[in-house]
């Protein structure tokens, strides 16, 4: 098809090709929520009907990111109108990541970071932070696979120094 015919189409779409060779067609306003896509096409220059490869993103993650952006785009203007809209947006943020494992969230963080989807990234980062905020040091090491590079003495000194921060921590789940 010629370019002229494309621009006559009603809805402008942007095509993205994922790492697993799937092609997604997104509405332009959703695609422009992706900072990387926005930068790629720029204000002019690169024609919008060109397919943009996103080799670092799997179709699984892209589907989810598109889902978030679509819903978010719908709720955000309502939130600016009135208190009910704000409440709905807050509820959306609270519920959206509830069912996902932390692992899934980390995968999404990688994808959202690559695509530069700031609103989603903020939510993902905050979700992880909330989940680990009351956990112990050992739990976090285990979760992220970090090995401590402190000597036992150094670690003891740190714990004493910040003793006030260690009160009221969740008990670690029982070892399997």
């Amino acid at each position, binding site marked *: 098809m010629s370019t002229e015919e494309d621009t006559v189409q009603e809805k402008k779409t942007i095509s993205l090709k994922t790492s697993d060779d799937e092609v997604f067609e997104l509405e332009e306003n959703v695609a422009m929520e992706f900072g990387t896509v926005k930068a790629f096409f720029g204000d002019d220059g690169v024609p919008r009907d060109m397919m943009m490869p996103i080799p670092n993103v799997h179709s699984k993650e892209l589907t989810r990111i598109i889902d978030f952006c679509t819903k978010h785009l719908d709720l955000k203007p309502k939130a600016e109108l009135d208190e009910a809209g704000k409440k709905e947006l807050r509820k959306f943020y609270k519920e959206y990541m509830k069912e996902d494992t932390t*692992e899934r969230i980390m995968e999404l963080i990688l994808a959202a970071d690559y695509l530069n989807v700031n609103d989603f990234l903020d939510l993902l980062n905050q979700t992880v932070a909330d989940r680990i905020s*009351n956990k112990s*040091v050992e739990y976090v090491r285990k979760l*992220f*696979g970090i090995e401590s590079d402190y000597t036992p003495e150094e670690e003891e000194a740190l714990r004493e*120094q*910040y003793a*006030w*921060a260690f009160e009221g921590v969740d008990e670690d789940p029982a070892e399997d």
Partner: protein
Amino acid sequence: MEELVMLRQLIGQLQEYVQVCGSQPLQQLQFPLLNQPRWCSSNVDDNSIDDYYSFMMAAGKSGSVRILEPSKPPPSKRYHKERTRGKSSGTTNATEPLEQHIWKDFPEDLYEAVIARLPIATFFRFRSVCRRWNSLLDSESFAQHCAEIPQANPWFYTITHENVNSGAMYDPSLKKWHHPMISSLPTKLIVLPVASAGGLVCFLDIGNRNFYVCNPLNQSFKELPARSVTVWSHIAVGMTMNGSSTSGGYKIMWVGCDGEYEVYDSLRNSWTRPGSMPSSVKLPLSLNFRSQALTIDSTLYFMRSDPEGIVSYDMVTGVWKQFIIPTPLHLTDHTLAECGGRIMLVGLLSKNAATCVCIWELQKMTLLWKEVDRMPNIWCLEFYGKHVRMTCLGNKGLLMLSLRSRQMNRLVTYNVSSREWLKVPGCVVPHGRKRQWIACGTSFYPCLTAVV
């Protein structure tokens, strides 16, 4: 002999402190000090002094606390060793350890965005996870992340009657009290928090002599150079930031009843006298010392009486202004507060035997106070027929009110924008059970990366 001299000096300071801060019967205040004359020397019974010395020794330096330096360069962060790829677990259990392949790909700087969003106490706890997480306070990218997170509620740095040497900090989002040790604050003087800006708290010793500035979270600390006065009279203090963070510098201003004032500039580390009080401001300036100065943008607001009203000082232009505003009747223990640029007044309204906490907002067009809220009646009933005193700690959007009668000290927070009244859990030291009485304090926006 030296101990006696110090003890006398301390008692003198303490008597002043009582006048300034509290209605606590004097015996209750003197008790901890008189019974421990060895307080000034190095072997004492008091637990908090023990803690202070024991972790001074652990830190290995005098006067400031540092993280122990590693004896060798920190190893590069190690991920889990290679393991066979397993299938990702399909369960929604959020506590599963992560798949190794996620791990290898996960860039370190993406953690910073998560860590910057942790509650302050959690951040300090996780500093022991590994050296990399410990060194985040020095990382510019981390500071950048922190700056991007919207400001949470302010915390409160308070001094308790029981232990005038160390602060008790209240975190209203977790409703928790923390008892950090700021080892660099002088222990032989009583210092009181008088102002804050950008995460830094300004302290003044009870004799009105020396100023100290510190960030209670990262122990960044400085004693300000001496002021150019010889008479140490009562002063009101205000603090502003030059820009949006303390890295752009800050200013501290003191003003006395005689109209004398000076401004400290952190960039030049010196005090200057920008000028003298204009004739529009009536002298003597009867300042309300119970009320902390408000900071709105670069302007400080102080409450005065005779005539009743507010005086303001613009730190940028150096201009003083006076506003005559009649104080509501039957009002005691009143202080100024602000929220989003609105100027509020908090005070106790007493009629017959009933006492209630009321909130007024300044109507800028008419320069009159208009009542906008009251503490719920059911809480006010507790004070019926009793002689109550109130101290307002903090004046930035979220206020902590310490209400004291002979037998009790009730703590309440009031959120000016949401008009929410919340009870504050009692302040108890670690391993203790007795509730501490809050004498005074200030609010500050916790900022992990602010330095003096």
